[in-house]
């Protein structure tokens, strides 16, 4: 099989090739030391060997605060998103799988106009990665991607995965050489979790109690999760008799998430942790039975107290000893 080879030296020309499809954003290290997806102006800005970004690409599709309606003269009108064409360069497979999952949630039977408006202006260029201690993934899961780059020494093997990807490659014929190399296959360090039995959230695994005892409810796990999409809807009347309705990231670790008029569905921290497990590993209808964990490892890495929900699965399914809270010295030191 003949493959398309992009020599390292052609990367700048390749980025130029992407420009007509939108502003190019890619993995870079911000001034504060945090690895993030941000605008890229030259290959020197790129951090090609990054582990993962602190905040996943969902920030482009579901911004932290997103106006959805404006109120003027007593009339509500949709607030269409300001969505410029955008190329996300260098997304790892887990993040591409996460976008594929979000597509199922937001572009299903009743597409969300704000999500759809942003999604159709997005071009996705994937990049192979090296797994770390926190991540695990299933390369076979569906991923949303136009072009995928497998990193090798001195260059990349490029494969198109969509008509747009084919088009980009046809526009840059001079950039690509023919190659006999085959893309290296990912070897995840841990097997990915399969969809779980929802009843598992009621298991008497002692780890549940321990995690509920130490969970700070800071919300980092969910904020950093590429598939956590819960939002709260709020309306703010303005001084001129108008107003704005917006949605903002919500988080099932917060008390207010389960509160309704007259009650609270999830009163204890344990209930809230179990709810997160239920959504992540068991799925809700209509995505019941679909695990939305793509194995990026961000939650375990961002947790100040070392909670790793995978341990709940491992203990129950493999009969292993309950894992202890991770030593605070490990894994929390880096920001990348």
């Amino acid at each position, binding site marked *: 099989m003949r493959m398309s080879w992009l020599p390292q030296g052609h990367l700048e020309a390749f980025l130029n090739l992407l420009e007509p499809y939108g502003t190019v954003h890619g993995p870079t290290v911000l001034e504060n030391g945090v690895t993030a997806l941000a605008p890229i102006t030259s290959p020197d800005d790129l951090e090609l060997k990054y582990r993962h970004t*602190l905040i996943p690409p969902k920030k482009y599709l579901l911004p932290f605060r997103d106006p959805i309606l404006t109120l003027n003269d007593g009339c509500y009108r949709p607030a269409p998103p300001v969505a410029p064409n955008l190329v996300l360069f260098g997304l790892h497979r887990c993040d591409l799988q996460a976008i594929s999952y979000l597509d199922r949630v937001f572009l299903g039977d009743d597409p969300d106009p704000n999500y759809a408006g942003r999604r159709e202006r997005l071009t996705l260029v994937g990049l192979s990665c090296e797994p770390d201690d926190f991540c695990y993934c299933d390369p076979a899961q569906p991923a949303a991607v136009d072009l995928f780059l497998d990193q090798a020494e001195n260059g990349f093997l490029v494969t198109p995965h969509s008509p747009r990807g084919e088009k980009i490659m046809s526009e840059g014929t001079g950039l690509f050489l023919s190659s006999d190399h085959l893309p290296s296959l990912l070897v995840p360090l841990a097997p990915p979790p399969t969809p779980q039995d929802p009843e598992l959230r009621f298991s008497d695994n002692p780890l549940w109690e321990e995690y509920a005892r130490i969970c700070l409810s*800071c919300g980092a796990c969910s*904020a950093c999760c590429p598939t956590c999409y819960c939002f709260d809807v709020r309306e703010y009347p303005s*001084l001129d008799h108008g*107003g704005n309705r917006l949605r903002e990231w919500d988080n099932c670790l917060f008390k207010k998430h389960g509160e309704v008029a007259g009650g609270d569905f999830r009163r204890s921290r344990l209930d809230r942790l179990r709810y997160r497990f239920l959504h992540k590993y068991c799925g809700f209808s209509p995505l019941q039975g679909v695990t939305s964990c793509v194995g990026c490892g961000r939650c375990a890495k961002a947790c100040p107290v070392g909670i790793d929900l995978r341990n709940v699965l491992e203990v129950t399914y493999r009969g292993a000893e309950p894992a202890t809270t991770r030593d605070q010295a490990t894994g*929390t030191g880096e920001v990348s």
Partner: protein
Amino acid sequence: MKRKPKLAIAGLTACSGCQLTFLNCEREIPTILDRFQVSFFPLGESSGGDDERFDAALIEGAVSTAQDLATLFALRRASRLLIAFGTCALFGGVAAMNNQLCDRAELFRSVYGREPEKDLIPPAPFTNFVAVDFSITGCPPEKTDLVALLGSLLAGTLPPTTCYPVCMECRSRENSCLLLDRDELCLGPIIQGGCNARCPATGIVCEGCRGPVSQANVAQEMELLLERGFDREDIRRRMSRFTPGWNYEQRD
């Protein structure tokens, strides 16, 4: 034309910073004055009549004198809605930070050199004395929260509340985590957000000026900070700077 809602803006024992937040809304003040009647605002030199009634009273400060209490009761009686405006009104704030550490009478003697008046009250939040209809936290409060309240009052409602910790907005802004990455004494996980992580975004730890978030796991934050090598007394001093009444054993 619809009657303009009447506002009272007042302060008890405090620095007047919350009332200044109102004056700092330069862009909105013309509209606010067009929509509301600011009937009582001693700091801004409006004086209302004795029989004035208010649609809403925004009051800052802790209750620490008999006069404070009288003002609070009078405004409570005169107002349909009483709004605790700022951290002191909600939690006692800076004035209350040493409530647990020293005796008020002794403090009074050492500062004023005479016997304390008999009506001395340890600085306390409003809810110790009156019903509070809504609160805006912060030292000082965010302008946006004040404007949101005023907009909502015009619409005959109250604004939605935020109930997430500082970490939520801090992570969303892709800040470096001062607690985990820089080993600093940051209170972000247990403090009410809504400030858009103002301090951590500039590299300054969260000192807790907005008070506890509703789901705070106080005992675990304490444990985590101790594990990370901070001194228990230093942690307590930091936590009680704006909120004296922490329950350090609270997990649920």
